């Protein structure tokens, strides 16, 4: 196998709706992995539950498709247990910002060297169209009959408030730039958030391809992604959503901090339990 095919799974029956933005993300991921030369054997996709969370099933790589909302703790631990792997936590907006909201906060604080990709379609797809945390005010659904009343969750602003190491927003409709952002995120050392705007053609008739085209633009070329306050100001823009890398703050990762004696990236499974040390420890209890 060569090229993008390397990431092509045998599973052919993809359960997404025709026209769904998820297809675009899937395609871009394959290309990104290929171009970054990340081998399927080195790649672990971790996901929760939802339409977006099915993505790992349509790729050829290792995968851990766990519980709704719980991808980040699993991904953090996988990376800690074997820092030689490339670990990507990928799920939908409901999964990551709703059910998984607490892990989102604290994973950012921990700063594991993983990439967090969120398919943000501003709706709960798999459960048939209820509001998600990112749904806009007024968005009507079978449960929110009179429109969403809650303040929409702004993942970019929250990630900035938590001083996330890398914060970006992309729009799946723009393949070139999205791929560039994904590459930057995956190669970034530390936690990297990529919130990808993704139309749900079935349940979100408001935030369509066209809507996203009309309501997004790119941060300027001379935009400074190290200024956290300026980034916050941009994150608050809602008339038209800025795309691109909002913020980069390189810092020590979770794995760096782990209490390892050796300071090596040696996977845990390669380390033998140290019975000599344990014997020593037991002796001190005498």
């Amino acid at each position, binding site marked *: 196998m060569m090229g993008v095919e390397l990431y092509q*799974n045998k*599973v052919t029956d993809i359960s997404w709706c025709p026209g769904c933005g998820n297809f675009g993300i899937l395609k871009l991921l394959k290309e990104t992995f290929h171009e970054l030369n990340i081998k*399927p*054997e*080195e790649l*672990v996709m*971790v996901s929760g*539950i939802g339409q977006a969370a*099915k993505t*790992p*099933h349509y790729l*050829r*790589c*290792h*995968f*851990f*498709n*766990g*519980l709704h909302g*719980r991808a*980040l*703790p*699993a*991904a*953090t*631990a*996988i*990376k*800690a*247990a*074997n820092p*030689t*792997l490339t670990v990507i936590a990928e799920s939908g907006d409901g999964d990551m910002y709703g059910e998984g909201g*607490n*892990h989102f*906060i*604290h994973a950012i604080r921990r700063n594991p060297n993983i990439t967090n990709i969120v398919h943000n379609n501003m709706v709960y797809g798999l459960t048939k169209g209820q509001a998600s945390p990112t749904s806009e005010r007024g968005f009507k659904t079978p449960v929110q009959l009179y429109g969403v009343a809650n303040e929409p969750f702004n993942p970019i602003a929250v990630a900035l408030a938590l001083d996330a190491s890398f914060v970006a927003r992309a729009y799946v409709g723009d393949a070139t730039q999205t791929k560039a952002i994904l590459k930057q995120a995956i190669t970034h050392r530390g936690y990297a958030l990529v919130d990808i705007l993704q139309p749900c053609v079935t349940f979100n008739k408001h935030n369509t391809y066209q809507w996203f085209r009309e309501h997004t633009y790119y941060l300027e070329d001379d935009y400074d992604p190290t200024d956290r306050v300026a980034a916050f100001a941009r994150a608050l823009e809602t008339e038209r959503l800025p795309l691109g890398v909002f913020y980069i703050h390189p810092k020590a990762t979770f794995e760096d901090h*782990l*209490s*390892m*004696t*050796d300071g090596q990236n040696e*996977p*845990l*499974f390669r*380390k033998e*339990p*140290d*019975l000599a*040390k*344990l*014997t020593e*420890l*037991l*002796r001190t*209890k*005498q």
Partner: protein
Amino acid sequence: MGKNESVSIVLCGEAGQGIQTIEAFLIRLFKAAGYPVFATKEYMSRIRGGSNSTEIRVSSRPVAAYVDRIDLLIPLDADALSHLERRITSNTIILGEAAKIKPPEHRPVIDIPFSRIAAEIGNPIYANSVAGGVVAGLFGLDLALVTEEIEGFFGVKSPDIIQKNKEAAVKGFHLGKELRETGRVVFEIRPEAAVSDDIIVSGSEAVALGALAGGCNFVAAYPMSPGTGVLTILAQHAREFAIVAEQAEDEISAVNMALGAWYAGARAMVTTSGGGFALMTEGISLAGMIESPLVVHVAQRPGPATGLPTRTEQADLDLVLYAGHGEFPRIILAPGNLSEAFYVAQKAFQLADEYQVPVFVLTDQFLVDTYYNVPRFALDRVSIKPQIVETTQDYRRYVLAPDGISPRGIPGYGTGLVGVDSDEHDEAGHLTEDLELRVRMQQKRMRKLEAIRKAADRPKLMGNEDYQTLVVGWGSSMEVIKEALAEIDRPELAGLHFTWVYPPAPEAIHYLRQAERIIMVENNSTGQFVKLLHAEFGVAVDHRILKYNGLPFSVEELVREIVTILTEE
């Protein structure tokens, strides 16, 4: 046990008064002097104030149970005497600062001005060393041993502090010796068992050390009494053993981290108590579905909800037995004493790895908070051979193996790809809606339970083989039942203790059938293990001795209750 075989010393005072320090010192000291020693505490859920007490049993032969009796009471504050009211008898010697503890008329107290002596030395904090010295003197220990142990105990402190503490202990020692020599207080007890090769550990330590011996190299937990101790101890040794010890943002994160860690080749555990465990139950179901090994330490405390955070109970058996939606196998182990706590924790890792199921180590506040001497743990009783396989290109995680156990690969070891999925899945781990495959997968998962059942350890018979009446217990009550039975000492009476709680070994039925009468002992209000025995063996229990006030059984009350049942007839 009579006073010549076992002396019960109780220290009582407010949180923050340093009871723990005297306790730790005395345990060390008595053990150094050659005595088997046991300590258990009961305390309130507060950081300062309140009334807490520690019982230290100094014995001729090893004991590991709580007794009501107090031979020597050292109250440290005014509330201590009323707090222990019901346990104080005319035989209880009370020794303390009369001015501080305000004893009532009818309670003669041997007045020892700990604080004044300490103040003379330079600081009231030396009072604890004075008290330690007094006890040493009362028991006729060797003064050189006392000063030596003070040195060891305060080893990391400045020489001046060590010196002052020594001075305090010596002063106390002479006061104690005087009481002894004048015959006012005499403890005539001689050690009969060799303890010098023993180690002294707490229940939390035993579990944590057992985990290390089981190859544990990843622990994720959210603090919750009484489960926190295991996290703390592992964290303290994290660098030394190159393990990951992470405080999670909540229990849900902890369990999902542990599952991620196993998936990537680590050997992971979580530690918590009932309430925190309740939050992990979805994760337990995930372990069932992805067939991940997992070790879960649940240290029980009384519920429901927040309940009594610092007390003990055995009321989460039903919970761990049925936690998680859907149906999948699991193993529940509940150690009966600190040696078992070590070996059970060690074995939990091996079993989890071998059968790819969640394994519960079910303890309680009583067990994790007791300290005593036990034979040094052997490190060769269970082998640590990780059950992972090197994958090949055609590797499939969920091969429909005849015994249900599909070889477990991990990412990064071999050329294959490893996929796991919380949905029903095919052999490669991809989600499926093939309903026939679903049935085969469910059967495959459940088949493991039969393999596990065959491997289950039998319950332990304690006492005469020709019993007619069987006193059955599980988990932390083993030693108190053992001591109570020894006390009652009747040939028709024996004990049966389950450490391997679920699935119970099929052979257990023989023990149960032989009994004409079964008495069940449980620290809960509904008799959860009674139900389990009934469900598994169709055996009816004749009498239930249940306790659920947050305290462990005492030897005396168990003796009383059992004898009442025996004589009722």
